[in-house]
Structure formats: structure tokens, C-alpha cells
């Protein structure tokens, strides 16, 4: 059963995941444990103290890329921030190091010149992503937290972030294109697995960016506007 229309809180959580296994990533970022039985999405969210509406908006954004995102002031900004924070942790402490290790084991094993420059490319990329995400952790999130806590922080506005927020996945896609198009290396299981991972990580990063640009930014813009 594959649903085209959006999921609601009355749908079963295990159906949601069986239909779209990519939802496993957000599930772990929301801190939800598996073993749902027949519980609905609404029940699982309530048990885990997660705002169901916000959960559904994020999940539906991932399942249906073309869906119209309704920015609604009742969405929980705290839930979105917690989600983004966990997702930063996932990329920086787990996924990107994991891909590096696999690249090294597949391409880097013979220390050829091509391997050296590919690893250099990757390390530079990770450094960029780290800077990008650390900026959000150090400047953007504290600003939002202070704003929703009732403060009136003067030194920042979400507009600054909106203008300078660039996409973080395109360089990773570039690496994968270079390997596929120009790299005459023999394919092996490690290499194919790491390419699969780069594809899915690029996609995951692009969803992450979408949540920031299309959900968080408009939500904070509205909040700033209404609390002037």
C-alpha cells in the first residue's frame, strides 16, 4: 500500500515506515524508539512528547517532495529545532565520518594520486558542512530560542540567515558525479555501497535544507512579524 495523499495522525506508525523506509531517519532524530505494535502516529508522538502536527509536516515533506508546505503558527518551533539539532549531530558525528571511512576503504586503499585528491576534496567538503552547521548551532538556534522565550534579541534576524543560507549538498553530489563520470576505478562492493550512501546522504541533506528554508525560516519570519 503506497499512499499518495498525506499521512494523518490516525495512520499506523508501522505502516508509515513500511511504506517509506526513509522515514527511519526522522524517527531516530525525533528520539522515537521502534516497536510500535499497532499504535497510530498520533499515539506514538504523544507517548514521546512530540508535537504530532510538526512531526507530520516534516514526514510529509520527505515523502511527498511536491507537497505544498503550509506554514502554520501552531507548529512547534521547539520540535523543529530539536529535530534539526539531532540531524546536525547525525551528519557531523556519524554519517559524514562513516562515508569518509568507506571512501578510504574503497578508493583510498592503494594511496594512488587520484585517491589522495578525492580524500582532499571530501575533507574540504566536510569542513564546509561543519562550519555551515556550527554557524546555525552557535548563532541561528540561540537567536530563535531567545525569540520564542519572549526575549527581543536585537543583534540578529532570520532574514540574515535566509539571505546567506546556501545549499550544502551540491558539492557532495559533485563528488559522486566526478567519480561516476571521470574516475576509471574498478568497481567493488565497498565503492558501490559508498556511492549508494553518498546518493542517500545528498538527498537527506537536501531535505534538511528544505526544512530550514521552507519551514523554519517562514515560521520565524511570521513570529518576528507578530511579536514586534
Amino acid at each position, binding site marked *: 500500500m503506497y499512499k499518495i495523499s498525506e499521512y494523518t495522525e490516525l495512520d499506523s506508525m508501522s505502516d508509515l515506515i513500511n511504506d517509506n523506509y526513509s522515514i527511519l531517519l526522522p524517527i531516530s532524530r525525533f528520539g522515537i524508539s521502534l516497536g510500535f505494535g499497532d499504535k497510530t502516529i498520533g499515539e506514538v508522538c504523544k507517548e514521546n512528547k512530540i508535537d504530532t502536527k510538526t512531526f507530520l509536516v516534516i514526514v510529509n515533506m520527505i515523502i511527498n517532495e511536491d507537497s505544498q508546505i503550509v506554514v502554520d503558527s501552531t507548529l512547534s518551533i521547539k520540535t523543529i529545532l530539536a529535530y534539526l539539532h539531532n540531524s546536525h549531530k547525525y551528519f557531523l558525528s556519524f554519517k559524514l565520518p562513516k562515508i569518509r571511512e568507506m571512501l578510504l576503504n574503497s578508493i583510498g586503499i592503494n594511496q594512488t594520486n587520484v585517491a589522495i585528491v578525492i580524500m582532499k*576534496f571530501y575533507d574540504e567538503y566536510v569542513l564546509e558542512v561543519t562550519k555551515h552547521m556550527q554557524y546555525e548551532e552557535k548563532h541561528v538556534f540561540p537567536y530563535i530560542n531567545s525569540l520564542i522565550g519572549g526575549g527581543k534579541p536585537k543583534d540578529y534576524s532570520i532574514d540574515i540567515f535566509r539571505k546567506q543560507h546556501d545549499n550544502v549538498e551540491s558539492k557532495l553530489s*559533485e563528488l559522486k558525479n566526478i567519480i561516476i563520470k571521470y*574516475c576509471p576505478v574498478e568497481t567493488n562492493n565497498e565503492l558501490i555501497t559508498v556511492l549508494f550512501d553518498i546518493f542517500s546522504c545528498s538527498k537527506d541533506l537536501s531535505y534538511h535544507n528544505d526544512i530550514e528554508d521552507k519551514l523554519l525560516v517562514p515560521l520565524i519570519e511570521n513570529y518576528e512579524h507578530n511579536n514586534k
Partner: protein
Amino acid sequence: MSSRIHVAVCEPSDIIRKGLVSILKKLTTLNIDILEIINLTNLIPLIIKSKPNIIIINPSYIGSLNLNTLKKETRLPNIQYIALQTTILDTQLLTQFNQVINIMDSPEEIKEKLIKLTTTTIDTNKKELSVREKDIIKLVVKGMTNKQIANELCLSIHTVITHRRNISTKLQIHSTSGLTIYAIINKLVEINEIKDIKE
């Protein structure tokens, strides 16, 4: 992959629009970016904001707003318009458009029509790098700035920038570290010539 084509599909009917969009998405050899416009009342501001290369629109819905007014008000003369024909229409009306897609067209026919409209952008992707472009890559990966490259090759900075843009389009590589990988694979430079690598 060829360069991106931004296509706006303006059609209020979900069945027809989603059907067309799913065909466009399956034309994988073309790199298409799709914007769906459902509500035609804010068509003009949306076009101005998104600046598509191609607009696919059902002539029946343009209504009182004819194609010429649309072209005039958006002030974007380079946009190509494709009529999405769902019923029998006056041929005079259709001649205003650059191309017509009929709802009975096969995916292959739709692809051919899109290719015809975008041939210029696709051609540039098949070209090999010129000797000059290879020279420039060598200097870029050695860590030289555009100004230094211009001096070295006795070119203007402007020419160097144009060459670099063409290199990016041809190879689909936009970063210096990406060009470095390309240069090493194709033996344009030695590993110890590359900036930041110390053996």
C-alpha cells in the same frame, strides 16, 4: 548531465498537471526543474520571481489575458511558451506559442519537442575541452587566482572568467577541488604541483 532547464507547468487540473509532471520527471536525460503553478491568478508575479526557461500552459486558461499581454507584463523575452492542448483550439491561437504539446502526445514526442526548444543549451555540453581551457585548469589547481592566470597566459581577467565558466558547464564541475580530481585523473598536472598537498 546537461544543464538545468526550468519548466513551469501551469494547469489547474490535478490529473492533467500531475500526469504531465510525472512524464517530465521521467525524461531523465534532460535535467528538468519543475515548478507547478496551480492557481493562475498569481501567474505573472510567479513567473517574474521564478524566471523559468519554458512555460507550459493551457491556452484555454489564459482567457482574457492573452499570450502577448503575458509576455509584455512579465518582461522576460527569453521565455519559451508551450501550449498544453487539451481540447480542439483555434490554430491561429496556437501559432503564438513556440511549441504545442497535445494531451495525446507520447513521452517521446514531448521529449523531442523540449529538445528542439533547448538545443543550444544541450550542444555546449558535448564539446571537448580546448587546449586553452586545459591550460587554465592546470593553473587553477596549482592555486593561482584569476588575476595570476590572466598574467601568466596574457589574457584579460574577463576572458579567464569566461573560460572558467565554460569549463564548469562542460565538465559539470564547479569547485577547485573537483577540478583537481579531474586534472589528476587526466594527468594534466602532477600531484606535487597541487596547492596544499605536500609530499
